[in-house]
Protein backbone atom coordinates (compact mmCIF):
# COMPACT_ATOMS: atom_id res chain seq x y z
CA UNK A 1 0.00 0.00 0.00
CA UNK A 2 1.49 3.32 -1.08
CA UNK A 3 -0.57 5.69 1.04
CA UNK A 4 -0.51 4.62 4.65
CA UNK A 5 -1.76 5.86 8.01
CA UNK A 6 0.03 9.20 7.87
CA UNK A 7 -1.97 10.16 4.79
CA UNK A 8 -5.38 9.39 6.21
CA UNK A 9 -4.55 10.96 9.55
CA UNK A 10 -3.51 14.06 7.64
CA UNK A 11 -6.74 14.12 5.60
CA UNK A 12 -8.68 13.89 8.86
CA UNK A 13 -6.69 16.65 10.61
CA UNK A 14 -6.82 19.05 7.68
CA UNK A 15 -10.56 18.42 7.31
CA UNK A 16 -11.20 19.07 10.99
CA UNK A 17 -9.14 22.28 10.88
CA UNK A 18 -10.92 23.73 7.84
CA UNK A 19 -14.28 22.45 9.00
CA UNK A 20 -13.99 24.12 12.40
CA UNK A 21 -13.15 27.43 10.78
CA UNK A 22 -16.08 27.26 8.36
CA UNK A 23 -18.45 26.27 11.15
CA UNK A 24 -17.32 29.12 13.39
CA UNK A 25 -17.71 31.56 10.53
CA UNK A 26 -21.19 30.26 9.78
CA UNK A 27 -22.24 30.52 13.43
CA UNK A 28 -21.07 34.14 13.51
CA UNK A 29 -22.89 34.92 10.31
CA UNK A 30 -26.24 33.35 11.10
CA UNK A 31 -26.42 34.17 14.79
CA UNK A 32 -25.63 37.77 14.01
CA UNK A 33 -23.39 37.96 17.05
CA UNK A 34 -20.60 40.51 17.07
CA UNK A 35 -18.52 38.42 19.40
CA UNK A 36 -15.93 36.43 17.50
CA UNK A 37 -14.48 34.32 20.27
CA UNK A 38 -15.73 31.12 18.64
CA UNK A 39 -13.83 32.07 15.50
CA UNK A 40 -10.78 32.73 17.60
CA UNK A 41 -11.11 29.33 19.19
CA UNK A 42 -11.49 27.71 15.75
CA UNK A 43 -8.37 29.46 14.48
CA UNK A 44 -6.35 28.49 17.53
CA UNK A 45 -7.58 24.94 17.22
CA UNK A 46 -7.25 24.56 13.47
CA UNK A 47 -3.75 25.89 12.93
CA UNK A 48 -1.92 23.34 15.10
CA UNK A 49 -4.04 20.52 13.67
CA UNK A 50 -3.27 21.52 10.09
CA UNK A 51 0.41 22.08 10.79
CA UNK A 52 0.69 18.72 12.54
CA UNK A 53 -0.99 17.16 9.52
CA UNK A 54 1.48 18.74 7.14
CA UNK A 55 4.41 17.43 9.19
CA UNK A 56 2.95 13.92 8.98
CA UNK A 57 2.51 14.35 5.25
CA UNK A 58 6.11 15.41 4.75
CA UNK A 59 7.20 12.44 6.80
CA UNK A 60 5.25 10.12 4.49
CA UNK A 61 7.21 11.30 1.43
CA UNK A 62 9.85 9.00 0.02
CA UNK A 63 12.38 11.81 0.20
CA UNK A 64 11.14 14.15 2.95
CA UNK A 65 14.04 16.56 2.60
CA UNK A 66 12.97 17.34 -0.94
CA UNK A 67 9.49 18.47 0.11
CA UNK A 68 10.37 21.97 -1.08
CA UNK A 69 10.15 20.75 -4.68
CA UNK A 70 6.42 21.15 -4.12
CA UNK A 71 6.86 24.89 -3.97
CA UNK A 72 8.50 25.09 -7.37
CA UNK A 73 5.27 24.15 -9.12
CA UNK A 74 1.83 25.65 -9.47
CA UNK A 75 -0.12 23.05 -11.35
CA UNK A 76 -3.88 23.25 -11.78
CA UNK A 77 -4.12 19.66 -12.97
CA UNK A 78 -2.46 18.27 -9.84
CA UNK A 79 -4.71 18.41 -6.76
CA UNK A 80 -1.65 17.83 -4.61
CA UNK A 81 0.01 20.92 -6.03
CA UNK A 82 -3.16 22.96 -5.56
CA UNK A 83 -3.54 21.57 -2.05
CA UNK A 84 -0.01 22.63 -1.16
CA UNK A 85 -0.77 26.23 -2.07
CA UNK A 86 -4.23 26.24 -0.51
CA UNK A 87 -2.73 25.00 2.73
CA UNK A 88 0.06 27.57 2.72
CA UNK A 89 -2.35 30.43 2.14
CA UNK A 90 -4.73 29.03 4.76
CA UNK A 91 -1.99 28.88 7.38
CA UNK A 92 -0.72 32.38 6.56
CA UNK A 93 -4.22 33.85 6.77
CA UNK A 94 -4.87 32.05 10.05
CA UNK A 95 -1.62 33.20 11.62
CA UNK A 96 -2.35 36.76 10.51
CA UNK A 97 -5.74 36.58 12.17
CA UNK A 98 -4.15 35.41 15.41
CA UNK A 99 -1.67 38.26 15.18
CA UNK A 100 -4.46 40.83 14.86
CA UNK A 101 -6.18 39.49 17.98
CA UNK A 102 -2.95 39.47 19.88
CA UNK A 103 -2.03 43.02 18.84
CA UNK A 104 -5.48 44.40 19.51
CA UNK A 105 -5.01 44.70 23.23
CA UNK A 106 -1.63 46.36 22.80
CA UNK A 107 -2.44 49.30 20.54
CA UNK A 108 -4.63 52.41 20.56
CA UNK A 109 -8.40 52.27 20.08
CA UNK A 110 -8.28 53.37 16.45
CA UNK A 111 -5.51 50.98 15.58
CA UNK A 112 -7.46 48.20 17.27
CA UNK A 113 -10.51 49.08 15.20
CA UNK A 114 -8.57 48.85 11.97
CA UNK A 115 -7.03 45.57 13.09
CA UNK A 116 -10.52 44.23 13.68
CA UNK A 117 -11.69 45.23 10.24
CA UNK A 118 -8.55 43.77 8.69
CA UNK A 119 -9.31 40.53 10.48
CA UNK A 120 -12.86 40.58 9.26
CA UNK A 121 -11.64 40.89 5.69
CA UNK A 122 -9.08 38.11 6.10
CA UNK A 123 -11.57 35.82 7.75
CA UNK A 124 -13.91 36.33 4.80
CA UNK A 125 -11.17 35.41 2.34
CA UNK A 126 -10.38 32.42 4.50
CA UNK A 127 -13.91 31.12 4.05
CA UNK A 128 -12.95 30.30 0.49
CA UNK A 129 -9.60 28.79 1.46
CA UNK A 130 -11.18 26.71 4.21
CA UNK A 131 -13.73 25.38 1.73
CA UNK A 132 -10.93 24.68 -0.75
CA UNK A 133 -8.86 23.00 1.96
CA UNK A 134 -11.55 20.54 3.00
CA UNK A 135 -12.61 19.97 -0.62
CA UNK A 136 -9.03 19.18 -1.55
CA UNK A 137 -8.79 16.38 1.02
CA UNK A 138 -11.40 14.55 -1.05
CA UNK A 139 -10.31 15.71 -4.49
CA UNK A 140 -6.80 14.42 -3.79
CA UNK A 141 -8.17 10.88 -3.69
CA UNK A 142 -10.89 11.37 -6.27
CA UNK A 143 -8.48 12.43 -9.03
CA UNK A 144 -6.89 9.01 -9.44
CA UNK A 145 -7.50 5.65 -11.03
CA UNK A 146 -8.77 3.89 -7.90
CA UNK A 147 -12.44 3.05 -8.39
CA UNK A 148 -13.46 3.58 -4.77
CA UNK A 149 -12.23 7.17 -5.02
CA UNK A 150 -12.70 8.09 -8.66
CA UNK A 151 -15.80 6.06 -9.52
CA UNK A 152 -18.15 8.84 -8.40
CA UNK A 153 -17.88 12.58 -7.86
CA UNK A 154 -19.36 12.31 -4.37
CA UNK A 155 -16.17 11.50 -2.48
CA UNK A 156 -15.14 15.18 -2.12
CA UNK A 157 -18.69 15.93 -0.97
CA UNK A 158 -18.52 13.14 1.61
CA UNK A 159 -15.16 14.30 2.96
CA UNK A 160 -16.36 17.90 3.10
CA UNK A 161 -19.45 17.06 5.11
CA UNK A 162 -17.42 14.85 7.42
CA UNK A 163 -14.84 17.64 7.78
CA UNK A 164 -17.48 20.09 8.97
CA UNK A 165 -18.99 17.49 11.28
CA UNK A 166 -15.63 16.66 12.88
CA UNK A 167 -14.74 20.36 12.94
CA UNK A 168 -17.85 21.20 14.96
CA UNK A 169 -17.20 18.28 17.31
CA UNK A 170 -13.63 19.46 17.84
CA UNK A 171 -14.87 22.98 18.58
CA UNK A 172 -17.32 21.62 21.12
CA UNK A 173 -14.68 19.56 22.90
CA UNK A 174 -12.17 22.40 22.88
CA UNK A 175 -14.74 24.84 24.25
CA UNK A 176 -15.79 22.44 26.99
CA UNK A 177 -12.18 21.73 27.83
CA UNK A 178 -11.43 25.43 28.20
CA UNK A 179 -14.56 25.95 30.26
CA UNK A 180 -13.46 23.18 32.59
CA UNK A 181 -10.10 24.83 33.00
CA UNK A 182 -11.74 28.18 33.67
CA UNK A 183 -13.86 26.56 36.36
CA UNK A 184 -10.94 24.75 37.88
CA UNK A 185 -8.27 26.02 40.15
CA UNK A 186 -5.50 25.69 37.57
CA UNK A 187 -4.57 29.31 37.89
CA UNK A 188 -1.55 29.30 35.63
CA UNK A 189 -3.16 27.50 32.70
CA UNK A 190 -6.17 29.74 33.19
CA UNK A 191 -3.98 32.78 33.00
CA UNK A 192 -2.32 31.52 29.82
CA UNK A 193 -5.71 30.89 28.24
CA UNK A 194 -6.99 34.26 29.24
CA UNK A 195 -3.89 35.78 27.69
CA UNK A 196 -4.49 33.90 24.45
CA UNK A 197 -8.13 34.84 24.27
CA UNK A 198 -7.63 38.34 25.55
CA UNK A 199 -10.26 38.13 28.21
CA UNK A 200 -10.36 37.84 31.96
CA UNK A 201 -13.05 35.17 32.13
CA UNK A 202 -13.07 33.42 28.81
CA UNK A 203 -15.87 30.87 28.61
CA UNK A 204 -18.18 29.53 25.96
CA UNK A 205 -21.82 29.67 27.10
CA UNK A 206 -23.49 26.29 27.51
CA UNK A 207 -26.33 27.43 25.26
CA UNK A 208 -23.80 27.83 22.49
CA UNK A 209 -22.44 24.34 23.01
CA UNK A 210 -25.91 22.86 22.78
CA UNK A 211 -26.53 24.80 19.61
CA UNK A 212 -23.29 23.52 18.11
CA UNK A 213 -24.30 19.96 18.94
CA UNK A 214 -27.66 20.57 17.26
CA UNK A 215 -25.90 21.92 14.20
CA UNK A 216 -23.67 18.85 14.11
CA UNK A 217 -26.78 16.66 14.18
CA UNK A 218 -28.10 18.55 11.16
CA UNK A 219 -24.75 18.13 9.39
CA UNK A 220 -24.84 14.40 10.14
CA UNK A 221 -28.26 14.10 8.50
CA UNK A 222 -26.75 15.50 5.32
CA UNK A 223 -23.70 13.28 5.75
CA UNK A 224 -25.93 10.22 5.86
CA UNK A 225 -27.61 11.39 2.65
CA UNK A 226 -24.26 11.93 0.90
CA UNK A 227 -23.02 8.55 2.11
CA UNK A 228 -26.07 6.83 0.66
CA UNK A 229 -25.57 8.68 -2.63
CA UNK A 230 -21.90 7.71 -2.68
CA UNK A 231 -22.65 4.02 -2.14
CA UNK A 232 -25.46 3.92 -4.71
CA UNK A 233 -23.39 5.74 -7.32
CA UNK A 234 -20.52 3.29 -6.94
CA UNK A 235 -22.85 0.31 -6.96
CA UNK A 236 -24.11 1.19 -10.43
CA UNK A 237 -20.83 0.41 -12.20
CA UNK A 238 -18.94 -2.88 -12.27
CA UNK A 239 -15.59 -1.44 -11.23
CA UNK A 240 -17.32 0.70 -8.62
CA UNK A 241 -19.28 -2.13 -7.04
CA UNK A 242 -16.16 -4.32 -6.89
CA UNK A 243 -14.36 -1.51 -5.08
CA UNK A 244 -17.36 -0.92 -2.84
CA UNK A 245 -17.37 -4.61 -1.92
CA UNK A 246 -14.00 -4.18 -0.23
CA UNK A 247 -15.50 -1.79 2.32
CA UNK A 248 -19.04 -3.15 2.65
CA UNK A 249 -18.42 -6.90 2.69
CA UNK A 250 -14.66 -7.34 2.27
CA UNK A 251 -11.68 -6.85 4.51
CA UNK A 252 -12.66 -3.30 5.54
CA UNK A 253 -16.27 -4.20 6.35
CA UNK A 254 -15.88 -4.16 10.14
CA UNK A 255 -14.40 -0.66 10.39
CA UNK A 256 -16.88 0.55 7.80
CA UNK A 257 -20.05 -0.65 9.53
CA UNK A 258 -18.90 -0.13 13.10
CA UNK A 259 -16.56 2.83 12.71
CA UNK A 260 -18.25 4.82 9.98
CA UNK A 261 -21.93 3.91 9.90
CA UNK A 262 -22.37 3.53 13.65
CA UNK A 263 -19.69 5.68 15.24
CA UNK A 264 -19.53 8.58 12.81
CA UNK A 265 -23.17 8.72 11.80
CA UNK A 266 -25.90 6.84 13.68
CA UNK A 267 -24.67 6.92 17.29
CA UNK A 268 -23.88 10.66 17.46
CA UNK A 269 -27.10 11.47 15.63
CA UNK A 270 -29.07 9.35 18.09
CA UNK A 271 -27.30 10.91 21.07
CA UNK A 272 -27.99 14.41 19.79
CA UNK A 273 -31.67 13.50 19.42
CA UNK A 274 -31.91 12.53 23.10
CA UNK A 275 -31.00 16.03 24.23
CA UNK A 276 -33.47 17.79 21.95
CA UNK A 277 -35.53 20.42 23.75
CA UNK A 278 -33.63 19.87 26.95
CA UNK A 279 -32.19 22.82 28.80
CA UNK A 280 -28.44 23.22 28.58
CA UNK A 281 -28.25 22.94 32.34
CA UNK A 282 -30.21 19.68 32.47
CA UNK A 283 -28.49 16.66 33.88
CA UNK A 284 -26.44 14.59 31.44
CA UNK A 285 -26.73 17.02 28.55
CA UNK A 286 -23.07 18.00 28.50
CA UNK A 287 -21.98 14.38 28.99
CA UNK A 288 -24.11 13.33 26.02
CA UNK A 289 -22.62 16.08 23.88
CA UNK A 290 -19.09 15.08 24.82
CA UNK A 291 -19.77 11.44 23.96
CA UNK A 292 -21.39 12.29 20.67
CA UNK A 293 -18.52 14.64 19.72
CA UNK A 294 -15.94 11.97 20.53
CA UNK A 295 -17.83 9.49 18.36
CA UNK A 296 -17.91 11.96 15.47
CA UNK A 297 -14.19 12.66 15.71
CA UNK A 298 -13.10 9.03 15.99
CA UNK A 299 -15.63 8.03 13.32
CA UNK A 300 -14.23 10.70 11.01
CA UNK A 301 -10.77 9.22 11.39
CA UNK A 302 -12.08 5.73 10.65
CA UNK A 303 -13.87 7.05 7.56
CA UNK A 304 -10.55 8.40 6.20
CA UNK A 305 -8.88 5.10 7.02
CA UNK A 306 -11.55 2.93 5.40
CA UNK A 307 -11.67 4.98 2.21
CA UNK A 308 -7.91 5.56 1.86
CA UNK A 309 -6.90 1.98 2.57
CA UNK A 310 -9.94 0.35 0.97
CA UNK A 311 -9.27 2.20 -2.27
CA UNK A 312 -5.82 0.69 -2.55
CA UNK A 313 -6.86 -2.92 -1.94
Amino acid at each position, binding site marked *: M*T*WTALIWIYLWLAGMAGGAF*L*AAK*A*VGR*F*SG*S*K*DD*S*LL*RLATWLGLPLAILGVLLLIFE*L*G*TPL*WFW*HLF*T*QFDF*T*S*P*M*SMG*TWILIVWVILGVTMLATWWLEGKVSQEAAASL*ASLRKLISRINIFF*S*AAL*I*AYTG*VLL*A*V*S*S*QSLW*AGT*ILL*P*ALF*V*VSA*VSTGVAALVLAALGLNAIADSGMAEIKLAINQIF*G*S*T*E*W*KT*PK*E*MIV*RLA*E*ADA*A*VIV*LEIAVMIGYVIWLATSTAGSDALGVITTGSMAAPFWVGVVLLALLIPFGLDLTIRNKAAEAKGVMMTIVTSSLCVIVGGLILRWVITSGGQL
Partner: protein
Amino acid sequence: MAEAILYDSTKCTACRACQVACKQWNELEAEETTNRGTYENPPELSASTWNKIKFTELELNGEFKWIFTRLACMHCEEASCQNVCPTGAISKTDEGFVLIDQKWCIGCGYCVQACPYEVPHKDEHTGTARKCTSCADRTSNDLKPACVTTCPTGALTYGDRSSLLSDAEQRVAALGGSATLYGENELGGLHALYILEDSPEVYGLPAEPQVATKNSIGQWLSGLITAGLITALPFWFIFRRKDQIAVGDANEGGAK
Protein backbone atom coordinates in the same frame (compact mmCIF):
# COMPACT_ATOMS: atom_id res chain seq x y z
CA MET B 1 9.62 11.78 -33.91
CA ALA B 2 7.11 9.58 -32.14
CA GLU B 3 8.45 6.14 -31.39
CA ALA B 4 6.85 3.09 -29.80
CA ILE B 5 7.31 -0.49 -28.69
CA LEU B 6 5.02 -3.00 -30.41
CA TYR B 7 4.15 -6.25 -28.63
CA ASP B 8 2.64 -9.06 -30.67
CA SER B 9 0.99 -11.40 -28.17
CA THR B 10 0.58 -14.09 -30.84
CA LYS B 11 4.33 -14.40 -31.19
CA CYS B 12 5.13 -14.30 -27.48
CA THR B 13 6.10 -17.63 -25.92
CA ALA B 14 6.42 -16.16 -22.42
CA CYS B 15 10.09 -17.05 -22.23
CA ARG B 16 10.44 -13.85 -20.17
CA ALA B 17 13.86 -13.00 -21.58
CA CYS B 18 12.57 -9.41 -21.75
CA GLN B 19 12.01 -9.40 -17.99
CA VAL B 20 15.57 -10.47 -17.39
CA ALA B 21 17.04 -8.05 -19.93
CA CYS B 22 15.11 -5.20 -18.29
CA LYS B 23 16.48 -6.10 -14.87
CA GLN B 24 20.02 -6.34 -16.23
CA TRP B 25 20.10 -3.12 -18.19
CA ASN B 26 18.37 -1.07 -15.51
CA GLU B 27 20.28 -2.75 -12.68
CA LEU B 28 17.11 -3.76 -10.87
CA GLU B 29 17.17 -6.16 -7.97
CA ALA B 30 15.72 -9.62 -8.26
CA GLU B 31 12.67 -10.25 -6.09
CA GLU B 32 12.20 -13.08 -3.69
CA THR B 33 8.94 -14.74 -4.61
CA THR B 34 7.02 -17.86 -3.67
CA ASN B 35 5.52 -20.62 -5.78
CA ARG B 36 1.96 -19.54 -6.51
CA GLY B 37 1.23 -22.49 -8.78
CA THR B 38 2.01 -20.56 -11.95
CA TYR B 39 5.03 -19.87 -14.12
CA GLU B 40 4.07 -16.21 -14.00
CA ASN B 41 6.62 -14.53 -11.79
CA PRO B 42 7.05 -12.09 -10.06
CA PRO B 43 3.37 -11.60 -9.23
CA GLU B 44 3.19 -7.95 -10.23
CA LEU B 45 5.08 -4.91 -11.40
CA SER B 46 7.05 -3.23 -8.64
CA ALA B 47 9.72 -0.63 -8.07
CA SER B 48 12.29 -3.18 -9.20
CA THR B 49 10.22 -5.00 -11.84
CA TRP B 50 9.41 -2.65 -14.68
CA ASN B 51 8.43 -5.20 -17.26
CA LYS B 52 6.69 -8.52 -16.84
CA ILE B 53 4.72 -11.04 -18.82
CA LYS B 54 1.26 -11.72 -17.45
CA PHE B 55 -0.21 -15.21 -17.91
CA THR B 56 -3.92 -15.83 -18.33
CA GLU B 57 -5.62 -19.21 -18.51
CA LEU B 58 -9.09 -19.26 -19.96
CA GLU B 59 -11.61 -21.18 -21.96
CA LEU B 60 -12.37 -19.66 -25.32
CA ASN B 61 -14.97 -21.22 -27.63
CA GLY B 62 -14.75 -24.47 -25.72
CA GLU B 63 -10.98 -24.58 -26.11
CA PHE B 64 -8.43 -24.19 -23.33
CA LYS B 65 -6.14 -21.22 -23.92
CA TRP B 66 -3.00 -19.98 -22.28
CA ILE B 67 -2.39 -16.40 -23.31
CA PHE B 68 0.24 -13.85 -22.48
CA THR B 69 0.52 -10.12 -22.35
CA ARG B 70 3.20 -7.62 -21.53
CA LEU B 71 2.90 -5.27 -18.57
CA ALA B 72 5.09 -2.17 -18.55
CA CYS B 73 4.61 1.56 -18.81
CA MET B 74 2.31 2.40 -21.72
CA HIS B 75 3.88 5.83 -22.18
CA CYS B 76 0.46 7.40 -22.57
CA GLU B 77 0.09 10.53 -24.67
CA GLU B 78 -2.33 11.80 -22.01
CA ALA B 79 -0.30 10.61 -19.07
CA SER B 80 -2.24 10.59 -15.79
CA CYS B 81 0.99 10.28 -13.83
CA GLN B 82 2.35 13.45 -15.39
CA ASN B 83 -0.91 15.33 -14.85
CA VAL B 84 -1.04 14.69 -11.12
CA CYS B 85 2.66 14.92 -10.27
CA PRO B 86 2.92 17.93 -7.94
CA THR B 87 6.62 18.58 -8.49
CA GLY B 88 6.89 18.43 -12.26
CA ALA B 89 9.22 15.45 -11.94
CA ILE B 90 7.49 13.65 -14.81
CA SER B 91 8.22 14.72 -18.36
CA LYS B 92 7.83 13.45 -21.90
CA THR B 93 10.64 12.97 -24.39
CA ASP B 94 10.35 13.96 -28.06
CA GLU B 95 9.83 10.28 -28.86
CA GLY B 96 6.79 10.31 -26.56
CA PHE B 97 8.27 8.41 -23.64
CA VAL B 98 7.27 9.39 -20.13
CA LEU B 99 10.13 9.70 -17.64
CA ILE B 100 10.32 10.26 -13.90
CA ASP B 101 13.24 12.48 -12.92
CA GLN B 102 14.85 10.55 -10.09
CA LYS B 103 16.57 13.69 -8.84
CA TRP B 104 13.34 15.63 -8.52
CA CYS B 105 10.66 13.10 -7.50
CA ILE B 106 9.76 13.42 -3.80
CA GLY B 107 8.09 10.04 -3.58
CA CYS B 108 4.64 11.38 -2.75
CA GLY B 109 3.09 8.39 -4.49
CA TYR B 110 0.45 10.33 -6.38
CA CYS B 111 1.47 8.91 -9.77
CA VAL B 112 1.10 5.43 -8.24
CA GLN B 113 -2.57 6.16 -7.47
CA ALA B 114 -3.25 7.91 -10.76
CA CYS B 115 -1.84 5.52 -13.36
CA PRO B 116 -4.65 3.53 -15.03
CA TYR B 117 -2.26 0.60 -15.51
CA GLU B 118 -0.76 0.44 -12.02
CA VAL B 119 2.71 1.00 -13.41
CA PRO B 120 4.81 3.29 -11.20
CA HIS B 121 5.78 2.07 -7.74
CA LYS B 122 7.47 3.74 -4.84
CA ASP B 123 10.96 2.38 -4.27
CA GLU B 124 11.77 1.91 -0.59
CA HIS B 125 15.49 2.34 -1.16
CA THR B 126 15.51 5.45 -3.34
CA GLY B 127 12.32 6.91 -1.89
CA THR B 128 11.22 7.83 -5.41
CA ALA B 129 8.65 6.46 -7.85
CA ARG B 130 10.18 4.27 -10.55
CA LYS B 131 9.01 2.60 -13.72
CA CYS B 132 9.93 1.61 -17.29
CA THR B 133 11.73 4.36 -19.21
CA SER B 134 11.53 2.61 -22.58
CA CYS B 135 15.31 2.57 -22.08
CA ALA B 136 15.60 6.25 -22.91
CA ASP B 137 19.32 5.97 -22.16
CA ARG B 138 19.63 3.38 -24.95
CA THR B 139 17.22 4.83 -27.51
CA SER B 140 18.90 8.23 -27.34
CA ASN B 141 22.07 6.39 -28.42
CA ASP B 142 20.48 4.60 -31.37
CA LEU B 143 20.06 1.37 -29.46
CA LYS B 144 16.75 -0.43 -29.07
CA PRO B 145 15.25 -0.95 -25.60
CA ALA B 146 16.81 -3.90 -23.80
CA CYS B 147 13.60 -5.96 -23.88
CA VAL B 148 13.20 -5.51 -27.63
CA THR B 149 16.86 -6.34 -28.32
CA THR B 150 16.64 -9.55 -26.40
CA CYS B 151 13.26 -10.86 -27.59
CA PRO B 152 14.04 -14.12 -29.47
CA THR B 153 10.70 -14.52 -31.25
CA GLY B 154 10.21 -11.06 -32.68
CA ALA B 155 7.20 -10.47 -30.45
CA LEU B 156 8.72 -7.12 -29.47
CA THR B 157 9.70 -4.52 -32.04
CA TYR B 158 10.70 -0.91 -31.68
CA GLY B 159 10.60 2.02 -34.05
CA ASP B 160 8.63 4.83 -35.61
CA ARG B 161 5.13 4.72 -34.12
CA SER B 162 3.21 5.29 -37.35
CA SER B 163 5.04 2.60 -39.29
CA LEU B 164 4.62 0.18 -36.38
CA LEU B 165 0.92 1.01 -36.44
CA SER B 166 0.57 0.13 -40.10
CA ASP B 167 2.50 -3.13 -39.58
CA ALA B 168 0.23 -3.91 -36.65
CA GLU B 169 -2.92 -3.18 -38.63
CA GLN B 170 -1.83 -5.61 -41.33
CA ARG B 171 -1.06 -8.26 -38.78
CA VAL B 172 -4.42 -7.83 -37.05
CA ALA B 173 -6.19 -8.07 -40.40
CA ALA B 174 -4.25 -11.24 -41.23
CA LEU B 175 -5.12 -12.78 -37.86
CA GLY B 176 -8.79 -12.01 -38.41
CA GLY B 177 -11.38 -13.21 -35.90
CA SER B 178 -11.55 -11.03 -32.84
CA ALA B 179 -7.93 -9.93 -33.04
CA THR B 180 -7.48 -6.32 -31.90
CA LEU B 181 -4.92 -3.58 -32.01
CA TYR B 182 -4.57 -1.90 -28.62
CA GLY B 183 -2.96 1.44 -27.97
CA GLU B 184 -3.67 3.38 -31.14
CA ASN B 185 -6.18 5.79 -29.60
CA GLU B 186 -6.36 4.88 -25.93
CA LEU B 187 -5.44 7.84 -23.69
CA GLY B 188 -4.55 9.98 -26.67
CA GLY B 189 -2.43 7.15 -28.09
CA LEU B 190 -0.05 4.86 -26.25
CA HIS B 191 3.62 4.46 -27.06
CA ALA B 192 3.31 0.78 -26.25
CA LEU B 193 1.18 -0.95 -28.89
CA TYR B 194 -0.39 -4.39 -28.63
CA ILE B 195 -1.52 -6.99 -31.12
CA LEU B 196 -4.04 -9.12 -29.24
CA GLU B 197 -5.92 -12.21 -30.38
CA ASP B 198 -9.00 -11.15 -28.52
CA SER B 199 -10.53 -8.15 -26.78
CA PRO B 200 -8.32 -6.25 -24.31
CA GLU B 201 -10.39 -7.34 -21.28
CA VAL B 202 -9.54 -10.97 -21.97
CA TYR B 203 -5.92 -10.01 -21.42
CA GLY B 204 -6.72 -7.95 -18.36
CA LEU B 205 -6.20 -4.62 -20.10
CA PRO B 206 -8.84 -1.91 -19.56
CA ALA B 207 -10.88 -1.51 -22.76
CA GLU B 208 -11.63 2.12 -22.02
CA PRO B 209 -8.89 3.49 -19.80
CA GLN B 210 -9.60 6.96 -18.40
CA VAL B 211 -7.21 9.77 -17.64
CA ALA B 212 -7.17 10.25 -13.87
CA THR B 213 -7.75 13.99 -14.23
CA LYS B 214 -10.76 13.57 -16.52
CA ASN B 215 -13.32 14.57 -13.88
CA SER B 216 -11.12 17.05 -12.01
CA ILE B 217 -13.47 19.99 -12.42
CA GLY B 218 -16.47 17.93 -11.35
CA GLN B 219 -14.59 16.68 -8.31
CA TRP B 220 -13.56 20.17 -7.24
CA LEU B 221 -17.09 21.47 -7.76
CA SER B 222 -18.50 18.58 -5.76
CA GLY B 223 -16.28 19.53 -2.82
CA LEU B 224 -16.67 23.30 -3.07
CA ILE B 225 -20.42 23.38 -3.62
CA THR B 226 -20.97 20.93 -0.78
CA ALA B 227 -18.78 23.08 1.46
CA GLY B 228 -21.01 26.05 0.65
CA LEU B 229 -24.23 24.17 1.28
CA ILE B 230 -23.09 22.45 4.44
CA THR B 231 -22.03 25.68 6.08
CA ALA B 232 -25.12 27.53 4.94
CA LEU B 233 -28.07 25.19 5.50
CA PRO B 234 -27.57 23.48 8.90
CA PHE B 235 -26.08 26.54 10.57
CA TRP B 236 -28.71 28.86 9.24
CA PHE B 237 -31.36 26.43 10.38
CA ILE B 238 -30.01 26.17 13.92
CA PHE B 239 -28.63 29.64 14.57
CA ARG B 240 -31.21 31.87 12.91
CA ARG B 241 -33.32 31.71 16.10
CA LYS B 242 -31.39 34.62 17.52
CA ASP B 243 -33.84 35.40 20.26
CA GLN B 244 -33.06 32.16 22.03
CA ILE B 245 -29.36 32.64 22.25
CA ALA B 246 -26.92 35.31 23.14
CA VAL B 247 -23.89 33.91 21.45
CA GLY B 248 -20.85 34.46 23.54
CA ASP B 249 -22.15 37.81 24.71
CA ALA B 250 -21.30 36.73 28.23
CA ASN B 251 -17.68 37.13 27.24
CA GLU B 252 -15.71 40.19 28.01
CA GLY B 253 -13.15 39.69 25.30
CA GLY B 254 -13.31 39.29 21.55
CA ALA B 255 -13.77 42.04 19.02
CA LYS B 256 -16.20 44.72 19.98
